[in-house]
């Protein structure tokens, strides 16, 4: 179980660098005290994940990862932070035994995952060919033929959520307006 035949080539070196990026991004996200620093380190993690997707030859997923997560979600979070109360630093009471417990938990998790991975035998999948070569095209074909109903349902769900958000926002604004005009009338 413990023999590791590690091959040093460009692929594995790149994977190691990306893994360090992802893990350090995630660890720093938990470690930083200012929320905005957390968002930046989270974006760092997202970009590292996109790099892993590139290594796995899933270019479409990688670019969408950057477009949606690193780009849009990070900016959304930054906006959210700026609009709300952001000055307070996150302070948590440091308890001695908590750290030890967390360490034990981490070791146990690592052991479980390590055991699971090492004891699984990965069957060598026959080369899928076109999927790896032109995966954007194949992905599009799959979505719009085999999985078209879940895709459409998902888009309807998103539209409903979108309209719901507008209705909620509009409702709040109208209430405020009504309250504003009421106070104005009182003043008159």
């Amino acid at each position, binding site marked *: 179980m413990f023999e590791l035949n590690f091959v040093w080539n460009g692929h594995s070196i790149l994977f190691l660098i990306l893994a360090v990026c992802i893990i350090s991004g995630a660890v720093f996200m938990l470690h930083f005290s200012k929320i905005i620093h957390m968002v930046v380190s989270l974006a760092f993690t997202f970009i590292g994940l996109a790099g892993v997707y590139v290594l796995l030859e899933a270019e479409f997923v990688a*670019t969408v990862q950057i*477009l949606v997560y690193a780009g849009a979600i990070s900016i959304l979070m930054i906006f959210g932070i700026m609009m709300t109360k952001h000055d307070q630093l996150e302070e948590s009471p440091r308890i001695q035994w908590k750290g030890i417990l967390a360490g034990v938990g981490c070791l146990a998790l690592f052991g479980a995952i390590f055991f699971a991975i090492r004891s699984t035998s990965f069957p060598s999948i026959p080369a899928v060919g076109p999927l790896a070569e032109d995966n954007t095209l194949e992905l599009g074909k799959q979505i719009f033929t085999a999985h078209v109903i879940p895709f459409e349902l998902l888009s309807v769900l998103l539209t409903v959520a979108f309209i719901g958000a507008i209705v909620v926002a509009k409702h709040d604004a109208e209430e405020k307006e009504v309250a504003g005009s009421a106070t104005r009338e009182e003043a008159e």
Partner: protein
Amino acid sequence: MNELIQQTLTWQNGLIFLGWAIVFLFIVLGFVTYAIYFERKVIGWMQFRHGPTRVGPLGLLQSVADVLKLLIKEDTIPQKADRTLFILAPIITFVPAFAVLAVIPYTPSLYFADLNVGLLYYAALSSLSTIGIILGGWASNNKYSLIGGMRSAAQMISYEIPLVISVVGVVMLSGGLSLRRIVEGQGSNFWEWNLLPQIIGFVVFMIAAVSELNRTPFDLPEAESELVAGYHVEYSGFRFAFFMLAEYVYVFAIASLTTVLFLGGWHPPLAILDFIPGLLWFMLKFVCVVFFLFWLRATMPRIRVDQLMSFGWKVLLPLALINIFVTAAYIELVVK
């Protein structure tokens, strides 16, 4: 170039890649230097002024002198700024600007990477620069820069949608996201370019591109008369230079992208002019687009924030969607 990229990565090949990247970086820096000079000259002539004339013959060394000044200037960081983010923000803005240039094909043989998802790669990476701008505005701890950063983010997000949707028509016509394939799908006569079949897409793309570049008439993030200078108010010296550099590298990128998507890339406008090398045609079209951007800056006034937002969402987005439907109907009825 493609054979070079497909080779196994050895130290020698890695150094060759690095060398090409550095050569390209210097070409882009040269472009930026003279684009600034060209912009000042063109706007000067349009306003009956001379533009820069003093440094060097015809003022040709003016930008070089400006860059030198920026580099040796004192580097100030405000005391109450968020130091780490303040230093990081110009880098986050600049790196994607340079990285998007990797997918643009200049001639059939001169290109850096022929990505399968080239167009999407461009859109994805250019959205990362917004983070840098918004962080720069935030980290400066200055109300003007914060407003500038927020405006910039709102504008770039809302105009990125019409920008991406307007090129869907081009993608549908060529059947791929690879920029090289898109150019190859266009012909050697100007009516075979994507410009005329995709004229709605082209107009929407141009307007959204100017807005993405934060240039007049959409330069609200750095409106001098309202916000002093926008998100880079507190920046000076070489950090400020990085923001400016990123902006002009995006001018380079957008002009190349317009040439590739709509103006036929390296193809000549008439088939009989085929003897002139493709790189020259590319450069000619590229310079025309750059001139158009500068011309726009000299002629248009700045528009209001609410006009900007409603224009993006209520005019450009429906137009881009209509373009997709028209293109789909055309492909379904005529081509098939």
